């Protein structure tokens, strides 16, 4: 037993060294794994980070590289352990129970979670359901979202549509509808009032109008229509005569 642990430790260390960019040599507590088997062949879960966060800028969508280092790896392991701890009726999972393997340049890797008491890795299904429950927390820890932080074989659940009780468009429609109806009513009513006023008092107006119009047509022979529009009392001929007189 001891010899196999040691083996894993060594190989594990080698793995880490090759992919970690800067120095920090990780001390992993190797836990008992099924002898002869590398932890990643179990393929408990694969996680891939699409490091391409498309950031909309004035110049257009640009890929911003997500800085990934050992601290981020630690955070990731902590989040996975947290998700496993939230599963009820389970022994407490420690960070050291989460193992990452096959880390590539792409920041995509496999990880397994080992069972603390028994000497085996947990089945993928359990881990997947645990992560699914806490997907939002994991995303937020990294300031990423479902598209940029991808867990293969864990489909993302889409947010339920938020339907307000009354659709917003009906509210705005109602407001504008009422305004238009009120304005129409006002115009119609004022029009009816004007009609009534005209019907009540035309008798006085008509006589004076007739007299004025008669005098104008008699005196000038200029057609009534344009004069009428200008109020019926301005006589072009008189105006030009005034202008001919030199001002004092």
């Amino acid at each position, binding site marked *: 037993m001891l010899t196999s642990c040691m083996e894993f430790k060594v190989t594990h260390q080698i793995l880490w060294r090759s992919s970690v960019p800067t120095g920090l040599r990780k001390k992993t507590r190797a836990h008992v794994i099924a002898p002869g088997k590398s932890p990643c062949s179990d393929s408990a879960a694969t996680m*891939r980070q*699409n*490091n*391409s966060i*498309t950031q909309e800028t*004035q*110049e*257009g*969508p640009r*890929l911003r*590289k*997500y800085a990934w280092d050992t601290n981020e790896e630690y955070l990731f392991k902590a989040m996975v352990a947290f998700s496993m701890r939230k599963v009820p009726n389970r022994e407490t999972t420690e960070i050291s129970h989460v193992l990452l393997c096959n880390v*590539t*340049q*792409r*920041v*995509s890797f496999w990880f397994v979670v080992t069972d603390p008491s028994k000497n085996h890795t947990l089945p993928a299904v359990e881990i997947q359901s645990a992560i699914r429950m806490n997907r939002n927390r994991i995303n937020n820890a990294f300031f990423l979202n479902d598209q940029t932080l991808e867990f293969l074989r864990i*489909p993302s*659940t*889409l*947010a*339920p*549509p938020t339907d307000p009780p009354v659709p*917003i*468009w*009906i509210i*705005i*429609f109602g407001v*504008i*509808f009422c305004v*238009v*109806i009120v*304005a*129409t009513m006002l*115009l*119609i009513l004022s*029009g009816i009032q004007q*009609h009534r006023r005209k019907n009540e008092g035309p008798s006085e107006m008509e006589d004076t*109008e007739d007299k004025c*119009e008669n005098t104008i047509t008699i005196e000038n022979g200029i057609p009534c*229509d*344009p004069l*009428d*529009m200008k109020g019926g009392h301005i006589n072009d001929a008189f105006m030009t005569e005034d202008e001919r007189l030199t001002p004092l």
Partner: protein
Amino acid sequence: MEKARPLWATPLQFVFACISYAVGLGNVWRFPYLCQMYGGGSFLVPYIVMLIVEGMPLLYLELAVGQRMRQGSIGAWRTISPYLSGVGVASVVVSFFLSMYYNVINAWAFWYLFHSFQDPLPWSVCPVNGNRTGYDEECEKATSTQYFWYRKTLNISPSIQENGAVQWEPALCLILAWLLVYLCILRGTESTGKVVYFTASLPYCVLLIYLIRGLTLHGATNGLAYMFTPKMEQLANPKAWINAATQIFFSLGLGFGSLIAFASYNEPSNDCQKHAIIVSLLNSSTSIFASVVTFSIYGFKATFNYESCLNKVILLLTNSFDLEDGFLTASNLEQVKGYLASAYPSKYNEVFPQIKNCSLESELDTAVQGTGLAFIVYTEAIKNMEVSQLWSVLYFFMLLMLGIGSMLGNTAAILTPLTDSKAISSYLPKEAISGLVCFINCAIGMVFTTEAGNYWFDIFNDYAATLSLLLIVLVETVAVCYLYGLRRFESDLRAMTGRKLNWYWKAMWAGVSPLLIVSLFVFYLSDYIMTGTLRYQAWDASQGQLVTKDYPPYALAIIGLLVASSTMCIPLVALGTFITRRLKRGDTAPGA
């Protein structure tokens, strides 16, 4: 004395009314399409030629007739010759058809406007499907903007035969649109004159804002460069000239009787020649202005889609080959693809079918016109802008102003002859006649809110006005020049405005314009006859795209009825007048 004819308060109101009527949705959604199809910058050449040869003269003619006769279209043509009141009746019928379907566009603009106050915009995301495992299937196959238009707004049926029920949401918006139009025309020129200040000027404000926004968008210059690069060989294409002539013709709104109606409320001494030139020039320059805005928006949308496509390919390759992030960029994509194909051939072949060929040209090439441009392409571009709610509200508000402005002209064309006729106006006050017309139009317009409504809308849009208008304007021009007499008309105009008529107008009226209209008419007739059966685009929900189908026989019959009902007015009314006169002469003594 007779009650004085209502007048525009100032000549400015008349000019604004004409601009508001002429500058409509066609300037925004038809001209950019034509520009793109027929050679970009070089399309301006036939466009300006047609403006000078056809647009300005015919516009001046209509305004002069209206101002001289001081009556709506029916009365004006009856004054010119009693046998020609059929022309006026045909104008009213065509205007009636137009106002029936045109206000549906305003209803759709209202719908989109009301939905613009949400975050995120409803057409920017696909709704999730029933069991929340993915997005709605139809939305996945099409785009979210197409889905919102075809499914949420229209709830379109797969073909014109399946009528479906009246959709209550667009129906409510249609009722609101008609109420708004009624409010604006309620008091005649008194109310219309004030409303046109807004409907004429606000679209320009919004277009200016959009111009500034559009030109500063990423990728706008791609669109502008692509569209405006002149393709001189298109000048030799007769279709370019025909489409330029048609666009000028319909864009100015000739033949509907609206211009005659507006001009009839002028003072007789109004200088309508100057106004005709101003209105036609403004209309054309607005078209060009709007197409600059549209092309910059196109460019933005095309560049955005192209870059998204590239990013998807980059992501796909990065994930499949576990490359380092940032290694693949747009510039080295082709090189790396070649390298990967040679280094990992088997894996590359697996991934190859999923790699799309991204091309900026093909994105720019998608030419759209009509409601597709306004409600699908523009909304797609708007959803990618920052503060998209604001841009969306501004845009649909502008569409609404343009639409209402044109509706004012359409309803004026119907109402002026009705209020002029003593038989009707002695029974009902003006408000009641307007209300009745609006109510009837609204009731019939409910057809366009059914599930197959958009297909009927296309029928009306394509066939209700096209041939009839050409015939109406042809008869108008020939009537004024040859029946009434060009000399007589010239002396009338001189008495009215005090200006001598330039030889240019006379030459155009008497010779060039009628010939042009005849050739357009012949072309359209031959086009209809040669294409044989008429077809339409139907939305296929299972595929998420448009498919072409044939019209059923009863739809063809209705198309024929639409065209016939307006064109047949001219000979039928002439015949009727002839018969009535013969009967009258038979009754009274001859020579009296």
